[in-house]
């Protein structure tokens, strides 16, 4: 390996001056065209509306005032918020417990467990939903079949009261393993000295987990939480596919994304759909930052 001299350092800046742009420009071009531009275009479209007489006219913030008073949209937002509050804690708890257990060295078959729990992440949400939909279903779902044979009527997961938990179960199944891997990766980087210090103090595996490991994976846990916020609020594939099995339970405004989709493609209200998409993005970013703010404040205390 070549050693560097101190002389090279000040020269670097001038010599490599604008080379940085060489590397970032390709990304920025695509970012501009396929990220910022659609966003700006949606913002632009959302300021217009279609009228029966006179075609598309400038409407100012009409679409937004309509959205804020739109009970279907608010219902959808509240539903995904409830979904987030129900599903995410359960999922992250499973992920955390699994990651801690596998990392602890206390379980057998750690490698098989790690891969097996992660595998559902590689299953497309469409396939996961079709699968769980059939499993839930009254026709040949094992649950209903067992009920038939044993002579009791199994609860129907596709009913109005159980739909949200049923969807939550699908999402948990899909992503618990992914979150577990992130947390496990974080656990692996905790310096061994800390464990040794804890062992010297007489801490068992449970106390080590609680006082050392969980605080150590806090940033990773926060990352998982951020992804889960995004995932919950943009819920689409699962309700969209389950809708066919339970059309009376899942309506066209079940989640904000299902609603935006039906606005744009069923009722052809393009401008309003753009406004709804825009607002949804805004809500997600806002919720993310509020959660980030609250959790980081908690950490400093």
């Amino acid at each position: 390996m070549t050693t560097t001299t101190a002389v090279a350092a000040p020269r670097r800046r001038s010599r490599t001056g604008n080379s940085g742009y060489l590397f970032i420009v390709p990304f920025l071009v695509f970012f501009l065209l396929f990220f910022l531009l659609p966003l700006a275009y949606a913002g632009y479209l959302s300021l217009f509306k279609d009228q029966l007489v006179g075609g598309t006219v400038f409407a100012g913030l009409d679409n937004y005032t309509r959205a804020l008073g739109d009970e279907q949209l608010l219902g959808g937002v509240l539903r995904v918020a409830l979904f987030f509050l129900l599903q995410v804690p359960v999922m992250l708890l499973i992920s955390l417990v699994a990651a801690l257990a596998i990392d602890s060295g206390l379980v057998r078959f750690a490698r098989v467990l790690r891969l097996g729990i992660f595998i559902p992440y590689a299953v497309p949400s469409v396939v996961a939903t079709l699968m769980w939909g059939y499993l839930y279903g009254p026709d040949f779902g094992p649950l209903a079949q067992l009920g038939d044979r044993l002579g009791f009527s199994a609860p129907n997961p596709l009913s109005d009261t159980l739909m949200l938990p049923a969807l939550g179960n699908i999402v948990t199944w899909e992503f618990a393993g992914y979150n577990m891997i992130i947390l496990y990766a974080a656990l692996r980087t905790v310096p061994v000295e800390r464990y040794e210090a804890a062992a010297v103090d007489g801490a068992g595996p449970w106390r080590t987990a609680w006082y050392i490991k969980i605080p150590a994976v806090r940033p990773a846990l926060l990352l998982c939480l951020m992804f889960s916020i995004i995932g919950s609020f943009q819920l689409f594939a699962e309700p969209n596919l389950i809708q066919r099995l339970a059309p009376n339970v899942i309506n066209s405004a079940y989640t904000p994304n299902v609603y935006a989709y039906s606005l744009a493609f069923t009722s052809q209200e393009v401008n309003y759909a753009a406004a709804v998409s825009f607002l949804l993005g805004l809500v997600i970013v806002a919720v993310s930052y509020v959660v980030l703010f609250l959790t980081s404040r908690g950490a400093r205390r």
Partner: protein
Amino acid sequence: MTRNRRSNLLTVGMLALLVYFLFPLFWLTVAATKTTGDLFSTFGLWFGHDFALFTNIRETFTREDGQYARWMLNTLGYAVVSSAGAASLATFAGYGFARYTFRGRSALLGLVLGTIMVPTTALAIPTYLLFAKVSLVNTPWAIILPSLVSPFGLFLMWVYARDAVSDSVLEAARIDGAGELAIFFRVTLRSLTPGFVTVLLFTLVATWNNYFLPLIMLNDPRYYPVTVGLSSWSAQAVGGSGANADLLACVVTGSLLSVLPLVAAFLLLQRYWQSGLSAGAVKE
């Protein structure tokens, strides 16, 4: 050492958890071996009267002029092109942001990282409307182009490049007179590989599994990825009678087959993505 003490209780609990995560896939595998009749008449978690797996596979691939094979190839094409492109752009840019100083660096980086929280589906309808203006809808580009931008991939590579590449190695290469691009490809790229493979694999999964974007963008079944194709088949199969009576077996078999490539990719590339993830997950 605590490493040698095993807890049977914990092992049993974890195995129960494993059963929860694997039994739907077990069900799918079993169901793919059944005729549509057996699907309805025999117990879901065990094999039926006839072993129809190979009949089902043949039926899945030959149905409607082999459109399932086409969907799988489409998915493969979209996923490979998108993920290779996205990972390359993110690696380039991540390295550029991490290893060079230039005017506007922190502003640009802040702009990109600030959009990590913007959900892709909130962009999908606006992108559709934009693409409709320039006649890009209902083409493969409508799926590939939006998938090339991964702000999170950039974040991951930026973190990765900060730690994995040492300044002294770069300086040495510069003193030897190597150009910046030559340095990147000959010196840096190797140490960025785990990060690159991680971003590659995760954008691959994102595109492979994407449903909302292709559902919006495409209405010609020839361009469908397998997710949208399976969804359209399952919609026809819900009726479950007449001409579509045996479609259900194809939906189930097609679902199973569509899962296999990604599962195989994850198992084969474990070494890479597990080390790559630890870099992104830990340092925030």
